[in-house]
């Protein structure tokens, strides 16, 4: 029974509701007016926003027997990157109710199905309740002490025999910033860069592509800022299901006259809310974007002054776009000239216009090119660095932005510092650890500077011939620390990799599909350690718009679960580097103190970890976010404006902190020390504002000149009020002296800043002088790059997917040559594409995948929540009526979906015109079935999710982005038959 997926094709028309949408300007009821008014609706005019405690007590009179402490804990939903605040009502340690936080400028009290039922975390019936290990094919309970000892002994033995690079640590985008940061440090001390997390398979192409275009690889504006947009293009995002509460702002903008357009292979629920929807062939993204640029240049709609002052290399793009004539675009994308022109014209004539994307652009073998083409399109229109414009890149997990920024990334230390010796030295200082000691942990200095293996390809690091690997040993042990296995492609081969491993450890609140897959694959070699959720600990979390929010601990870790940072500390004790993890100094003091956690056990203090982040991560401005400032914001959400996110007045009653002028959550970069009181940056690269008001410009990160062309911004282009009114490089001690500003540093600052640049000056003095005294950007003022010369395709090119439904286009738009060594191993392109050139004959349907509103990620957590599980009880595939009828398939019956890997999925058919003929869509949150078999008996007893189903990634095919090893999930091939 699919309660939310309606039956085939359309039901009876309701004609009066189908009129086309047109919007005109007008004022809307803001949230406060709504509240005031709604509040009036009930007797006595009680405000609905924050219920007084006395009333809460009254509310509880129903259940309570003999009273008890009632507390309200403010936390943030853990199910996506929007960052919806929640007030959790806790009585005697039990989470009894949740109330909407109308004051939150981000969600205004609103929730989707997941947020509105998050209190289920306080039940947790399907959690992993105690440590377990796989013995003779059965899950056996063991004590924490035994589990920690056995796991650490085995990991140390593998390290001794095969080196630290024989292990792989998969961290989590659900860890808070502090845990993410600590895990990067922890794995470094184990001696390897082999670590990764969901960002790899989420937005790695965005982060790399966008950062290389203009500086930072993050959402440039915010969900709220869409209220300033006049045209919003959803291209590669189904926000109505993946980020439902963001639609609050989108629909608000629409009501104020913004045009909303959706281009997607599938008529999504977002498309249903758009003014216009155009269907595109999956995987043809660059062709569409170039096709739009073709019209932009042809009609001279580009912003010439902006391009001249702030963009490098647009002439090269112009040449490429000239080739994309409407006939060629139609050949590749299936879109008519009028459709492409309409989108281009709407975006050009309704500025500021914004483009929204998520996995639809990123998860492709040419994902880095797709996202850059989107950036270039926005640069051409002068839309970047403008309120209402920008690239609104919707991140996935609640803290995937934060974990990307400061967490376990294989190619960088926290804050995108990279892995060069200078970066290690910077962090050795910040951590209070001898750099020579760190070096000893690694196999060699070279391995210390070599980016590690990616989560998308750990299976290849197990299965690949050893001589092809760019490290000594194959992987022997994998730790899944808050990450689902079914989010990675090639699931059938994952089973083969699991069989070959010596050890697999799952550290998670849920046993996750990893446990079931391991128990199916083999009788031993797996440990499960129960971790606490983010509702069972405190810490900071970075929303997609870069605002950082503070979560209070709602309840104590349930059952035998322990917080992730406690587990890190306890494993560090076993590994012998607990002192280093805390930064113990000669005088016995530690940089991070120990706090008492669950059961009186020690765990690193979360606020201290954040302070260490504040002291070290200057690059992306994670330095101004002191715990005190973040907590003051959480207590005073009502002072922040919904449209601008800026506080108008306001003083925190508890601390006296003046909120006036701060942007909510101090969206990073929040430069300098907390004392500098930088307000955060709601819109990146915005030259219309002063640096100290959150303004900025593009980053000088790629040199000052290339082939005689100036890479810095042209004269007159700078952030408002800057003393330097032209382009300039990043600030360091030399530039400061040259400018004659050095003496504006205090004596202490001078000591710290000597020989340093703005990223490594531990006093923050260089930043203070540049920004506060002179209105200049510490990272310089340069042009954005339309040509990213360090990427394989400097100008984004369309390349056919490896498993292309259009073999006739493969020769015209071939993929890359095979690569011998990327991220420590070979990666195939042409070989796979050529070998599967005729796959379309046997597998004529495009297989694509995406999200459902009820579930998140791999889905083990949300499928264990009965309130959600009831709404989506079966895995399904959407098939167009034509494709279904041609195969004798009727609605709501079992079918087999088979791909060129020969893996087969048994799912229910959903016959619908939501997908066009030739395309099949499958949601990706399901797991627990494997090729038709329910693995219920493979889960630890009582810990299987309520709803299980076939994982789409069991059948997905090979294919990775050349720059980041992003996996291809959006375009492959399949065939369908009746089961």
């Amino acid at each position, binding site marked *: 029974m699919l309660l939310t997926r309606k039956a085939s094709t359309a039901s009876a028309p309701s004609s009066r509701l189908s009129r086309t949408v047109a919007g005109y300007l007008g004022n809307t009821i803001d949230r406060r007016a709504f509240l005031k008014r709604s509040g009036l609706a009930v007797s006595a005019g009680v405000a609905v926003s924050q219920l007084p405690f006395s009333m809460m007590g009254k509310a509880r009179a129903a259940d309570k027997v003999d009273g008890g402490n009632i507390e309200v804990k403010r936390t943030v939903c853990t199910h996506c990157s929007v960052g919806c605040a929640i007030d959790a009502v806790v009585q005697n340690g039990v989470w009894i109710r949740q109330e909407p936080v109308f004051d939150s400028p981000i969600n205004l009290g609103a929730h989707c199905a997941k947020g509105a039922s998050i209190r289920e975390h306080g039940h947790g019936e399907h959690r992993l309740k105690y440590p377990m290990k796989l013995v003779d094919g059965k899950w056996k309970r063991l004590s924490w002490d035994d589990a920690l000892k056995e796991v650490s002994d085995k990991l140390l033995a593998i390290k001794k025999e095969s080196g630290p690079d024989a292990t792989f640590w998969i961290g989590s985008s659900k860890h808070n910033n502090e845990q993410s940061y600590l895990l990067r440090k922890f794995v470094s001390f184990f001696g390897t860069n082999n670590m990764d997390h969901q960002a790899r398979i989420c937005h790695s192409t965005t982060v790399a592509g966008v950062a290389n275009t203009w500086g930072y690889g993050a959402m440039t504006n915010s969900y709220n800022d869409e209220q300033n947009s006049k045209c919003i293009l959803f291209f590669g995002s189904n926000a109505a299901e993946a980020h439902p509460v963001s639609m609050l702002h989108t629909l608000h903008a629409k*009501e104020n006259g913004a045009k909303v357009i959706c281009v997607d292979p599938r008529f999504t629920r977002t498309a249903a809310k758009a003014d216009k929807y155009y269907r595109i062939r999956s995987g043809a993204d660059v062709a569409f974007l170039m096709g739009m640029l073709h019209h932009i240049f042809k009609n001279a709609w580009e912003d010439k002054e902006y391009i001249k002052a702030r963009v490098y290399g647009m002439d090269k793009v112009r040449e490429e776009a000239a080739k994309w004539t409407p006939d060629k675009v139609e050949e590749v994308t299936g879109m008519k000239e009028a459709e492409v022109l309409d989108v281009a014209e709407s975006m050009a004539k309704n500025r500021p216009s914004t483009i929204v994307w998520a996995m639809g652009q990123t998860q492709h073998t040419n994902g880095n090119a797709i996202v850059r083409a989107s950036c270039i399109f926005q640069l051409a229109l002068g839309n970047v660095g403008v309120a209402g414009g920008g690239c609104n890149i919707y991140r996935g997990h609640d803290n995937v932005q934060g974990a990307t920024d400061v967490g376990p990334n294989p190619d960088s230390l926290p804050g995108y510092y990279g892995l060069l010796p200078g970066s290690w030295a910077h962090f050795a200082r910040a951590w209070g650890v001898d750099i020579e000691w760190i070096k000893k942990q690694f196999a060699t200095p070279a391995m210390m500077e070599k980016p590690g293996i990616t989560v998308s390809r750990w299976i290849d690091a197990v299965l690949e011939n050893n001589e092809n690997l760019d490290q000594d040993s194959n992987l022997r042990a994998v730790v899944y620390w808050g990450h689902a296995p079914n989010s990675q492609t090639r699931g059938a081969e994952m089973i083969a990799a699991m069989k070959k491993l010596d050890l697999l450890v799952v550290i998670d609140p849920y046993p996750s599909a990893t446990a079931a897959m391991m128990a199916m694959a083999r009788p031993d070699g797996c440990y499960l350690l129960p971790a606490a959720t983010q509702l069972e600990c405190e810490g900071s979390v970075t929303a997609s718009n870069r605002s950082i929010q503070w979560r209070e601990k709602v309840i104590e870790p349930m059952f035998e679960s322990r917080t992730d940072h406690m587990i890190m500390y306890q494993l560090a004790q076993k590994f012998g580097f607990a002192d280093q993890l805390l930064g113990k100094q000669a005088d016995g003091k530690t940089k991070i103190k120990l706090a008492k956690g669950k059961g009186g056990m020690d765990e690193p203090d979360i606020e201290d970890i954040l302070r260490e982040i504040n002291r070290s991560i200057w690059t992306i401005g994670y330095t101004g976010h002191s715990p005190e400032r973040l907590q003051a914001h959480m207590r005073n959400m009502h002072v922040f404006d919904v449209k601008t996110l800026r506080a108008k007045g306001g003083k925190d009653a508890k601390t006296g902190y003046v909120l006036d002028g701060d942007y909510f959550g101090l969206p990073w970069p929040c430069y300098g020390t907390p004392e500098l009181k930088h307000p955060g940056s709601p819109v990146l690269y915005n030259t219309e504002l002063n640096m100290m008001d959150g303004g900025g410009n593009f980053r000088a990160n790629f040199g000052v000149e290339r082939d005689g062309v100036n890479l810095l911004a042209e004269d007159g282009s700078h952030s408002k009020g800057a003393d330097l009114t032209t382009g300039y490089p990043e600030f360091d001690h030399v530039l400061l002296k040259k400018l004659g500003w050095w003496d504006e540093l205090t004596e202490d600052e001078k000591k710290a800043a000597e020989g340093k640049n703005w990223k490594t000056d531990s006093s923050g003095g260089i930043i203070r002088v540049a920004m506060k005294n002179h209105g200049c950007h510490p990272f310089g003022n340069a042009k954005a790059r339309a040509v990213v010369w360090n990427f394989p395709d400097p100008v984004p090119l369309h390349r056919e997917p490896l498993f292309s439904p259009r073999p006739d286009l493969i020769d015209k738009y071939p993929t890359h040559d095979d690569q011998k060594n990327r991220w420590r191993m070979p990666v195939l392109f042409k070989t796979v594409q050529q070998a599967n050139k005729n796959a379309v004959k046997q597998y004529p349907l495009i297989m694509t995948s995406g999200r459902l509103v009820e579930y998140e990620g791999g889905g083990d957590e949300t499928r264990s929540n009965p309130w959600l599980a009831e709404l989506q009880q079966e895995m399904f595939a959407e098939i167009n009526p034509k494709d279904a009828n041609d195969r004798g398939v009727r609605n709501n019956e079992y079918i087999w979906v088979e791909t060129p890997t020969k893996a087969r999925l048994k799912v229910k058919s959903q016959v619908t015109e939501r997908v066009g003929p030739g395309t099949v869509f499958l949601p990706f949150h399901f797991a627990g079935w494997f090729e038709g078999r329910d693995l219920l008996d493979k889960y630890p007893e009582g810990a299987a999710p309520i709803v299980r189903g076939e994982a789409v990634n069991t059948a997905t095919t090979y294919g990775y982005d050349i720059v980041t090893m992003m996996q291809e999930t959006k375009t492959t091939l399949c065939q369908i038959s009746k089961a």
Partner: protein
Amino acid sequence: MARMKFLCDAERCIECNGCVTACKQEHEIPWGVNRRRVVTLNDGVPGEKSISVACMHCSDAPCMAVCPVDCFYKTSEGIVLHDKDLCIGCGYCFYACPFGAPQFPQDGAFGLRGKMDKCTFCAGGPETDHSEAEYKKYGRNRLAEGKLPACAEMCSTKALLGGDADVISDIYRNRVMKRGKGSEVWGWGTAYGKPDAKPATPPGAKS
């Protein structure tokens, strides 16, 4: 005195089911009972619209009219409630209701709450406000706490509005004016006729 109503704005409803789980969560409603659900028409094709539906708390409620044991009653705020102690679970209200609001718990603990279950507008039942008996049979009484129904308070896009009809209609009227076109609320065309609209479903499509 307020007159309590729900109104779901089809231009804003994105079928996220937040209202459904907010209700389930607030009242601990078991699997198989849905006081509220989201209905979508033209699913998957242009013209797709969703609205969230529960008991509409009719002014002249058919359920009240037909109930053989007269278990329904209306509060001074216009909320239609029923007494589970009187209810015999015959399902005649189910016949009468135009919205499929009455729910019939299959078994288990929730069945003890009574024979028929439906949306209470988060206003509890005939028992004493905030009493254990009220909570067990009818769920939370948010109205008595000065709050509005959980579903409307948590709606992801503020599509579902719940509260005094006078206020709700004011909010909705403003939205309609701002959009610059006629009302799109469910049922408007039925009430007043709309000759200009054409069918969203292509001719010949199955319904």
